[in-house]
């Protein structure tokens, strides 16, 4: 049956309201403070290490994001850990919160489709993430300028920008997941817990589970080709985790010397000048599958949430 009118009527209104809610919520301020603290610590530690070494790295500025000094992890590792938390905080009560406040039927009785509410809320979350990360990114770069006393090159800025996009896409995956749980589960606390459980699974347990699973169900052919097949299988399995995709993508984009993300045969390295940086285009090519994977995860999760929401009874 065809329905008349655009499903996008009202998206802008929902987007504006939800973004304003996010940006003024105490929840977000707490998490932003946490991230800011992490960023400050990581950058300070990294910069002090960078000053200690007298290297001729043409991408010195980018190492600000990736270098770690004990006991602090690098900025990128911090982000890999904290971005899901922010995203979950933005999304876990998107729909069930409207249910429990009894505002859902009232809002949907206005001349908009359900699509507008869900899309508006998702875009608001994504916009909030983008604003937060952009601010953070500018802060880190500014801090780097002050501490290192040297400006980033054009390519470094571009690479940094791609890194920003990857971070937003990574946040989008967790936002879509949290919103899916907010549609599936009526209790906000349960939805938050479910999303956090998935986060813990991928952040902590996935790297332990993958070798076990690969051994149990992976290819078992003997010899070097069997080993290679097993390594490939294990890598494929580990890439189910958005955390792994994020780590690989940021590694390749922030460290231009990265030439491959996975096992490489010696024959493939023939003639390669190890340690020489790849041009930006080649690095992008390298992380394209990771980016596509993240985008696909966002779309998949959002679609499931969308379909479930469309079929849901809205009566409280």
């Amino acid at each position, binding site marked *: 049956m065809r329905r*008349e009118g655009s499903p996008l009527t009202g998206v802008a209104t929902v987007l504006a309201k939800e973004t304003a809610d996010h940006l003024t919520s105490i929840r977000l301020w707490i998490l932003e403070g946490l991230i800011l603290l992490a960023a400050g610590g990581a950058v300070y530690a990294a910069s002090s290490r960078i000053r200690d070494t007298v290297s001729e790295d043409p991408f010195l500025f980018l190492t600000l994001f990736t270098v770690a000094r004990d006991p602090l992890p690098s900025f990128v590792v911090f982000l890999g850990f904290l971005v899901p938390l922010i995203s979950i905080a933005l999304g876990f009560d998107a729909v069930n919160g409207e249910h429990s406040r*009894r505002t859902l039927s*009232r*809002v949907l*009785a206005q001349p908009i489709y359900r699509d507008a509410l869900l899309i508006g809320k998702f875009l608001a979350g994504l916009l909030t993430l983008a604003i937060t990360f952009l601010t953070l990114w500018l802060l880190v770069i500014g801090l780097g300028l002050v501490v290192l006393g040297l400006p980033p090159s054009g390519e470094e800025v571009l690479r940094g920008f791609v890194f920003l996009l990857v971070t937003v896409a990574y946040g989008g995956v967790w936002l879509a997941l949290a919103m899916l749980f907010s549609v599936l589960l009526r209790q906000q606390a349960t939805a938050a817990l479910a999303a956090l459980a998935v986060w813990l699974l991928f952040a902590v347990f996935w790297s332990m589970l993958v070798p076990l699973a690969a051994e149990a169900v992976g290819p078992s052919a003997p010899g070097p080709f069997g080993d290679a097949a097993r390594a490939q299988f294990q890598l494929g399995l580990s890439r189910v985790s958005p955390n792994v995709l994020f780590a690989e993508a940021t590694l390749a984009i922030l460290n231009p010397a990265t030439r491959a993300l996975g096992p490489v045969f010696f024959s493939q390295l023939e003639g390669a000048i190890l340690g020489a940086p790849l041009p930006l285009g080649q690095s992008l090519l390298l992380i394209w599958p990771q980016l596509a994977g993240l985008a696909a995860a966002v779309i998949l999760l959002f679609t499931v949430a969308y379909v479930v929401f469309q079929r849901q009874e809205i009566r409280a």
Partner: protein
Amino acid sequence: MSLAVEARGLVKRYGAFAAVQGLDLAIEEGTVFGLLGPNGSGKTTTILMLIGLTEASAGTVRVLGLDPLRQPLEVKRAVGYMPDSVGFYDELTARENLRYSGKLAGLSGSELERRIDAALERVRLAHAADQRVKVFSRGMRQRLGLAEVLLKKPRLAILDEPTSGLDPQATHEFLDMIRGLKADGITVLLSSHLLDQVQAVCDRVGLFHRGRMVLEGPVERLAREVLGGGYRISAEAEGNAASIAAALARIPGVNGVEPDEPNRYRVSAERDLRSAVAEAVTGAGGTLLSLGMQRPTLDEVYNEYFRRSGGEEARHAA
């Protein structure tokens, strides 16, 4: 007169359970219609189908001549809906809540602000316009819900249990506001299980029972159908009981006479027949001591109906 709401053979099933089974409903424009029934009898489900928030399993609905499933945006533009125990965003002020709804409804700028002021004035919340809804009482929230309906300038207002949980004073005020809607030419559909209130404002009522509308019409006609007579006249008279009772039963328009305690007669009649009763008593040689009349209340209709249908069900079960 054209119909604001027209539903035919409406069915809504949730799995094996049918919340609404074969509902026919017609509401004329400009009237106040009351949906009555116990909790869980399918009133809210019906309302949700009318505004396209739930899809009917079978049957057709027309709201203001539009199909709520195919043209939901147009229907929702012309229909104001206030859900059962309405909720607002607690962190926002009354004005901000209304502004959000108004923008979703496609209003903007000074027109929106003017309508917000007018609506808040109308429900007597102008003084609290810039307070957070967090501090609002139940009655204020209900009134804010009505303000949201007014904001749209709807042709049809659907109010689901608008007075539940309100104190008598607040209820009285709220009913006054509903009468105000009617005066503005807005068709009102309201659902309730509080009968005396429905009776006070509704032109017609529909009685819901287990997903069906079992009775429909003006209150007085329902009373005639269910109670056998709309008016209860009680007479106290001395004299020959048998001849007085016979004389009373002969009055045209009297449906039944029941001798009560000694010298008391309960007459059910279609109209106000007090003078005829008085004449009949004196005509039969009796002395009239007192004469009283009770208008039928919806309460009686309701209780009598469910007593009977409950009895039938009991028989079916046995």
